Each structure stands twice: as structure tokens, then as C-alpha cells.
């Protein structure tokens, strides 16, 4: 289990972050990805090659994350969630 200090921090985190009343976060992730995509390279030339990749990595990072979010959940998770109730006898 969590040490006590971690529990206290957990509570604080949920409170503070919750206060921002941000929904699940998908909307903001787009903004944040834009935010960190520094120096959108002006030379987005038609030429193929490595330089063209640069502006895409922030989007790629988000896609990486979203690709997992959108995966169907393995059944083991449904099983585990179902057991949570049953386990609290």
C-alpha cells in the first residue's frame, strides 16, 4: 500500500487537478501538443527527407498515446474490475 505521505499527496493532487475541471483531457492534449511543437519549421519543403519529420513529432507523441487509449481493453481488465466488487465482501 501507499506510504502515508503518498496518500496525502494523492489527495492533494486529485483536489488541485480536479479543481481545474478539465474533462478527460483529449481536447487539451491537442493544444498542448501544439504548445510543445516548437519552431514549426518554415522550411516544410516538398522535398522528402528528415527535415520534414520535425513538425510531426509532437503530433506523433500524441498519436502514440491515443493509439493505446483507443485500443480495446484486454479482457483481463474487465475481469479485474468485476472482481473489485466481489472482493469487498
Amino acid at each position: 500500500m501507499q506510504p502515508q505521505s503518498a496518500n496525502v499527496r494523492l489527495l492533494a493532487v486529485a483536489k488541485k487537478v480536479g479543481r481545474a475541471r478539465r474533462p478527460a483531457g483529449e481536447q487539451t492534449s491537442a493544444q498542448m501538443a501544439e504548445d510543445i511543437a516548437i519552431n514549426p519549421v518554415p522550411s516544410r519543403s516538398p522535398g522528402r527527407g528528415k527535415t520534414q519529420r520535425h513538425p510531426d513529432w509532437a503530433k506523433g507523441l500524441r498519436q502514440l498515446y491515443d493509439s493505446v487509449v483507443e485500443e480495446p481493453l484486454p479482457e483481463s481488465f474487465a475481469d479485474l474490475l468485476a472482481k473489485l466488487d466481489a472482493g469487498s465482501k
Partner: protein
Amino acid sequence: MTREQPGDEDVAFKRELTGVVSHLRAFARGLCGRPDLADDLVQETLLKAWAARDRFVPGTSMRAWTFVILRNAYLTEMRRNRFRGDYDETVADRILTAPPGQEGPLHLADMHRALMTLPAERREALLLVGAGGFSYEDAAEICGCAVGTIKSRVARARTALNAMIEEGNLPRRKSGHEDADAEIMRELESLPRGD
């Protein structure tokens, strides 16, 4: 703890918990890079979250709350050195195919490989802010550090990624032999553990 039947609070908690499982999986996979170990972490997180559900304040962010638990579980595993070696590139390549319609020249497997070369703290910060959509402030809360620290970590992470991707300095794919080794390691890891 004796509970006859799940109360309303438990039902509500479980509904919210269920809603963040996919995000936990995404965060965990970004942290440790291995789908199987990531899912182990998420399962552990769900159990811990459930055990600690009395301390969750309804109306606050379940995602942030569970991310802290996941992060702690990850750090504990790191200390136990379970994530020795590297992420499993064979699996990563199989899973990280770009979704249809993605025109970008950046392959997700390249992105993943680049991400996994970052020091854990920077990778985590970048994941929270750049992928998870948390503000710097929220990410700092989750990591238990100063906002400036998070900003610095994100800045360093993106500098490294820029260097790798812009300049084509992506880490090379491993040779077939190492892939085989990774596969063996993965098999070993997936053996039932006596928990």
C-alpha cells in the same frame, strides 16, 4: 473492511475508475515501453486505487489521482529493477503501426523508440504534458515536484527529440539477434509470478 454490498459511492468510484483504464494503459506504456509490463502496472494500480477508494474525493480528477498511484508503482518496480534491459521492439513494431489516414512521415515506432531513449523523468514529463494533456501545474502535482522542474524536463525532452528526429539521429533498430533476445526476455517476464 467489511462491506455487504457495493454502496453508491463504490459504484460511482468504479465507474470513474473504469473510465480511466485506457489512459492508465497509455501512460504506463509510455513510461515503461513494454505493453505486457505496462498492463501489469495498470492492474496493480487498479487494485491499489480500489483499496484506497475511501480517500478519493468525488469531483476531483480520477485520472490525476490514479496516475500518481501508477507512477508510484512504476518507480517501485524500477527500484526492484524489473524493467531491466529495454522495451520490446518486436512488440512495439507490431503494435505501433500508424493509424489509417496518418499521412505524416513520422512512423510511430520511430517516435516510440526516440521516446524510450529519454531519461525516465523527462519522458514522464513529456508524456503528461505533451500526450496526456495535463498542464505544467497538474503534471508537477502528479510528479510531486516544482512547476519549473516540469517545464525544464519537458524542454530538455523536446530538445532531445528535435535533435533525434529533425537531424535523423534516431536510435537504430536492433539486429535480429537482439530481437530474439528481447523476445526471450518477454517470454520470461510473462511467466506467472508468485505475487
